[in-house]
């Protein structure tokens, strides 16, 4: 089982990228997580450019999602909402909606922020966007508030938050396994 992960923050020491690494360590055996780290290369969405061949980074992201069994997105919160570059990349992936690679795919959202609330509004808006794209969006999330105090290196050291993250990762894996089983049966 392959889980593709996106971190909505581009900076080198991003807490959300650390959160993805922390999630990777909580995956059960047989599941692997790959961080898609080319988000900064995605150009601004322009319908004039939305033709074949797609811009290289867009084609790579579409292929990465198509090749994965599930998606994990870790998002910060910019002005109470989704970071522009992350939303922009999802807008590219979503077109055309009826054929986009996220359709039916299990997806979980988590988030970290330096403030108290752990990107809860951004996570909620991201779930709405991913559901509109046709993803099978899991309800549970993890809100890592006061992020600078929660990590050592890329290890999430808060036990309670780590348990919540394990729960989300576990639910994503179960949902994906259930989907695979039903597709084999069908």
């Amino acid at each position, binding site marked *: 089982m392959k889980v593709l992960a996106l971190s909505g923050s581009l900076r080198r020491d991003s807490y959300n990228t650390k959160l993805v690494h922390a999630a990777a360590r909580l995956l059960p055996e047989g599941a692997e997580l790959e961080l898609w780290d080319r988000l900064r290369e995605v150009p601004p969405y322009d319908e004039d450019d939305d033709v074949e061949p797609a811009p290289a980074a867009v084609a790579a992201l579409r292929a990465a999602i198509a090749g994965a069994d599930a998606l994990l997105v870790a998002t910060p919160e910019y002005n109470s909402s989704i970071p522009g570059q992350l939303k922009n990349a999802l807008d590219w992936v979503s077109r*055309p*909606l*009826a*054929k986009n690679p996220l*359709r*039916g795919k299990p997806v979980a959202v988590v988030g970290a922020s330096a403030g108290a609330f752990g990107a809860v509004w951004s996570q909620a808006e991201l779930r709405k966007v991913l*559901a*509109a794209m*046709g*993803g*099978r*969006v899991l309800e549970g999330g993890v809100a890592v508030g006061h992020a600078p105090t929660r990590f050592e290196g890329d290890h999430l050291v808060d036990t309670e938050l780590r348990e919540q993250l394990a729960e989300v990762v576990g639910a994503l894996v179960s949902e994906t396994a259930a*989907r695979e089983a*039903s*597709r084999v049966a069908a």
Partner: protein
Amino acid sequence: MSTTEIRQALPTGIWYLDSVHSSIGFEIAYMAGAFRGQFREVDATLEDTRLTGSAQVASVEVKDENLAAHLQSPEFFDVERYPELRFASTDVEGGDELTIGGEITIKGVTQPVELTGRANEPLTDAYGRERFGLTLETKLDRTAFGLNWNLPLSSGEPALSNEVTLAAELFFVKEA
């Protein structure tokens, strides 16, 4: 007075659906008016007044393929997990209207439902086969089946009604 004789009971025997001429559709209030769609692939059988039927979610027909994709997504019917809508009758009652009680299954949720409508008197078609028509309708709360998508308007009111009308126009042909 109608030129078609209205029959307030279902005919006996085994009847199969003429799916080409039949339709199973829905109507729902969406912002300014009623929005309608239908399922292209439908099936039904009437066997000694027990009615069963199904519609394939993947065959939902609306005027835009992206809208069809949205209806098939987990926010609505979730075609991948629940590819079929099903109905099975449990009882039939005559009267001013024909009333068919039964169970409907949408998105994996089964609920009791009452369909009302009329059945036409069987007639013999140009090829010597017996046919009759059955028109049925019911209203459902889509949220009872987990079809919860909505969008708040600036007034605070939701864009999409919870109440949906399901309407079936069924053409049956008697088993040869």
